[in-house]
């Protein structure tokens, strides 16, 4: 179809405009506004009269120890949960790929954590990891290997481990489905050829399966890294940053500064630092992808 006359151009315009209008008002304008505000003095007391202060907000962010804690926590979360859920998801996909009966059943069961909402999953984990919860009871009264007083959610690293455990648990199903679809695409002749050559299973995996699903691995890696930076609800509901903001992630800390202390300028600058870090990571990931393809 061509845009060779006025009527066609008008019709195309009418089709595009509702989505673009919504997108412009509720996403583009807030992005521009956020960028603008990150260079202004903007807090509860100066809600309506903001003065330009250059990069001061950014300086404050980089000097803030709490920022670095939340930054470190987010990076650790990404470094631990992304490869772990990819590995476990791939293992489940490979296991299911090799069976005939109940393949659908196992995929459904392992996908259930993905459709369980973050709110519900976080609360169940909070309940299990409570100091009076099931896990402590299991450790101390069934296994008899410790006291039943472990404050899982009240310490920085144990709290983060629970948060990361939840993130991994919830992500395995997504990876399983994505990798299972990729495994189905690997030409069966490749496997037959390798079994004729007498390849061992493990060698077949590294020389045939892994290279064939490489694009999917990279796709999952990029998507999950973005997802890891999005971590918010689980932290908010399980630890809420406690103790003393040691388990905050970038988004929970941004939210806290905006809505609890009213430092909007700080949060705006933090949002851009975060978006910029994510963009850097994405560029790095795409560099690796294109390098490996050469």
């Amino acid at each position, binding site marked *: 179809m061509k*845009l060779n006359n006025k009527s066609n151009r008008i*019709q195309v315009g009418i089709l595009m405009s509702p989505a*673009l209008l919504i997108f412009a008002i509720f*996403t583009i304008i807030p992005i521009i*506004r956020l960028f603008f505000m990150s260079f202004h003095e903007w807090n509860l007391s100066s809600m309506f009269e903001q003065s330009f202060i250059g990069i001061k907000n950014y300086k404050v962010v980089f000097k803030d120890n709490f920022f670095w804690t939340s930054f470190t926590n987010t990076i650790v979360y990404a470094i631990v949960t992304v490869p772990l859920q990819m590995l476990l998801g791939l293992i489940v996909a490979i296991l299911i790929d090799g069976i005939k009966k109940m393949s659908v059943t196992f995929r459904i069961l392992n996908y259930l954590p993905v459709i369980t909402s973050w709110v519900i999953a976080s609360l169940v984990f909070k309940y*299990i990891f409570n100091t009076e919860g099931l896990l402590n009871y299991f450790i101390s009264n069934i296994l008899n290997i410790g006291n039943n007083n472990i404050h899982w959610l009240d310490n920085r690293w144990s709290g983060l481990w629970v948060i990361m455990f939840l993130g991994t648990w919830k992500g395995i199903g997504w990876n399983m489905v994505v990798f299972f679809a990729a495994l189905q695409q690997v030409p069966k002749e490749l496997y037959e050829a390798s079994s004729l050559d007498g390849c061992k299973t493990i060698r077949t995996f590294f020389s045939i399966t892994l290279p064939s699903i490489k694009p999917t691995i990279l796709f999952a890696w990029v998507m999950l890294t973005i997802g890891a930076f999005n971590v918010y609800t689980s932290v908010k509901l399980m630890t809420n940053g406690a103790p003393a903001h040691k388990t905050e992630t970038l988004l929970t800390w*941004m939210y806290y500064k905006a809505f609890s202390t009213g430092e909007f300028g700080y949060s705006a600058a933090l949002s851009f630092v975060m*978006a910029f870090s994510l963009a850097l990571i994405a560029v790095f990931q795409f560099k690796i992808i294109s390098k490996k393809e050469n």
Partner: protein
Amino acid sequence: MIRSKKSLFIRYFFLILFSVVALFPMIYMISTSLKPNGALYEFPPKFFPNLDEITLNNYRYILGESRFIKNFLNSIYVSSLSVFIAAITSTALAFVLGQFKNRFTNMVFALLIVTMVIPGTTLIVPQFELAVWMNLINKLTALIPFYTVWVIPFSTFMIKGFMESIPKDIIDSAEIDGASIFKVFVNIAVPLASPGIASVTIFNFLSSWEEFPWANTVINDSNIRTLPIAITGFFGQHQFTQWGYVFALSMLSLLPILIIFISFQKFFISGLVAGGVKG
């Protein structure tokens, strides 16, 4: 490939193990929701309730409170309306982006993709300011445009793929017959892209149904809450959290999702549109 019995056994063993880990928290939630509320602080905690103490009292309480019924209806209203608007607007946009490629449409598409990378919650401050300016605070309507705009980029991206795969001959012959662009869109493009539109809409419904940060920020009144906010609303209300109520309401809010999941399982587990549930 020939598999030995032993390797098959190992596969099933590990698959059952993974499935147990996947299901364990949910089973524990169901079992807790069936215990009497008073038993929840009892020592020792039990994974399964005793048969004689199983009770539906938590569910009875939830279903007897009119505000929870309202929360349920609020969630249905907000999620349905926003996925409906998103489906229509994204399909129209995807049609144009897929069928009319020029510098402008390519630029629009690139912009949509770039915003998919930005975590949605980073924009919460200016979006909150926008909602204040539009006088939407503490109103259910405040959720709809934002839920719509969050799913537009991904929906457009997915549906565009379907629009591009429409055979050129079909569109050309319709054009020769004198069909306008609107006619081609409604009569040819939409029917052919409908599997894509349907699957995207199902995923969008899930993400609107479970959305927490935004609803938690703009809505306060317990009658206007959506389900995720109603569930977290139990905390801080009493000195002890009534976990029985929390999990009974959680189960009830999970029920529609489970029904959708089981009815459309092939959309979910085939991996075609798996990207929809991330983030």
